[in-house]
């Protein structure tokens, strides 16, 4: 009798599994096929190419390039810098993600004003913003490296702890936190699978999934944008671009995703 129940349970599990596989098949298989067709050709490369030109071009009120920018590994070192962020920068006195740091260099080296930088950080398909081009260039230079934010300076540990708390903070008209959808294994919203960002396995894929070129919007989206849009869907007010809260959340995600191999900007539907 026990034996039979066990078999029935096994059958039930298999059957449910195949139904789910069928249900998600068209979307996910479609994306996989599209990725395969594109191979290494991610339109994010167009951003990267523009970004490299921008990085090396004298610009801003001070008319200098970003080539002396210190992304954490010393002035001018771009290779591998992204993989070691977010980190604490002594000159700025705070923890920054890579996008905040590039903007810091645009302000301090090139002389752009904060107002210029925060005016329109997220571009559109027709008008990509310069920071997204620069970002694509910088992150691509960490291709093949392991995500390894230092997470050792007291400010970095503080950022992680604040990020974790913000991740679980329920507020807004729907009482949602990030964790409402992203702190449990194997859940879906509609057919979209939801990564459990409190666990390393899922967090690795999620963290290296941004920045990404989205085919449906025909543009590159940064991690700053990703966090911004999560809060829109959570029905919160808007998190300020590059604010301590956003950088704390990115720190939390980066530390959770530690050890993942970075493969360059992702490609999403």
């Amino acid at each position, binding site marked *: 009798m026990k034996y039979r129940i066990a078999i029935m349970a096994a059958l039930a599990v298999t059957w449910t599994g195949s139904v789910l596989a069928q249900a998600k098949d068209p979307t996910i298989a479609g994306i996989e096929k599209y990725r395969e067709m*594109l191979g*290494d*050709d991610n*339109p994010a*490369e*167009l951003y990267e*190419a523009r970004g490299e030109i921008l990085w090396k071009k004298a610009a801003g009120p001070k008319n200098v390039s970003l080539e002396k920018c210190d992304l954490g590994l010393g002035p001018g070192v771009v290779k591998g810098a992204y993989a070691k962020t977010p980190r604490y920068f002594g000159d700025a006195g705070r923890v920054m993600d890579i996008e905040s740091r590039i903007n810091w260099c645009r302000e301090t080296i090139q002389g752009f004003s904060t107002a210029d930088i925060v005016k329109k950080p997220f571009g559109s*398909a*027709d008008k990509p913003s310069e920071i997204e081009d620069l970002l694509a260039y910088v992150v691509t230079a960490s291709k093949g490296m392991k995500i390894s934010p230092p997470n050792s300076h007291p400010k970095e540990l503080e950022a992680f702890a604040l990020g974790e708390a913000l991740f679980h903070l329920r507020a807004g008209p729907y009482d949602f936190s990030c964790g409402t959808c992203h702190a449990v294994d194997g859940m879906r919203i509609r057919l979209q699978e939801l990564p459990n960002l409190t666990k390393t396995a899922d967090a690795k894929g999620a963290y290296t999934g941004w920045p990404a070129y989205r*085919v449906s919007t025909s543009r590159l989206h940064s991690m700053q944008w990703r966090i911004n849009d999560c809060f829109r869907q959570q029905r919160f007010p808007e998190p300020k671009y590059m604010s301590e809260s956003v950088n704390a959340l990115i720190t939390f995600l980066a530390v959770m995703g530690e050890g993942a191999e970075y493969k360059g900007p992702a490609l999403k539907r």
Partner: protein
Amino acid sequence: MSDPMKIRAKLSGDVAEIRVLMGHAMETGQRKDAAGKTIPAHFIQSMTVEVAGKIVVDGQIGTSVSRNPVFGFKVKGAKAGDKVVISWVDNKGDKRSDEVAVA
């Protein structure tokens, strides 16, 4: 000014696999902007692929192709070092040409 194309040309045996990523709006002329105004059509009309001085693809494309399109071709008889030149012309007369050597 248009973005440079990303071209890869990799030889396996005597077949060169050529892949090209083009930065272009490929606007269909059927979309409207936020103000309800039609966005004028702007798309690549013709493209050519030249390998070692010989045109191997001379094609016409249109508005059914996505923004930032990717194309792939296989060319028989190519040798390492052959120059691959890819060019396009759009409906506004803008054009672009980029090249790479078969590796």
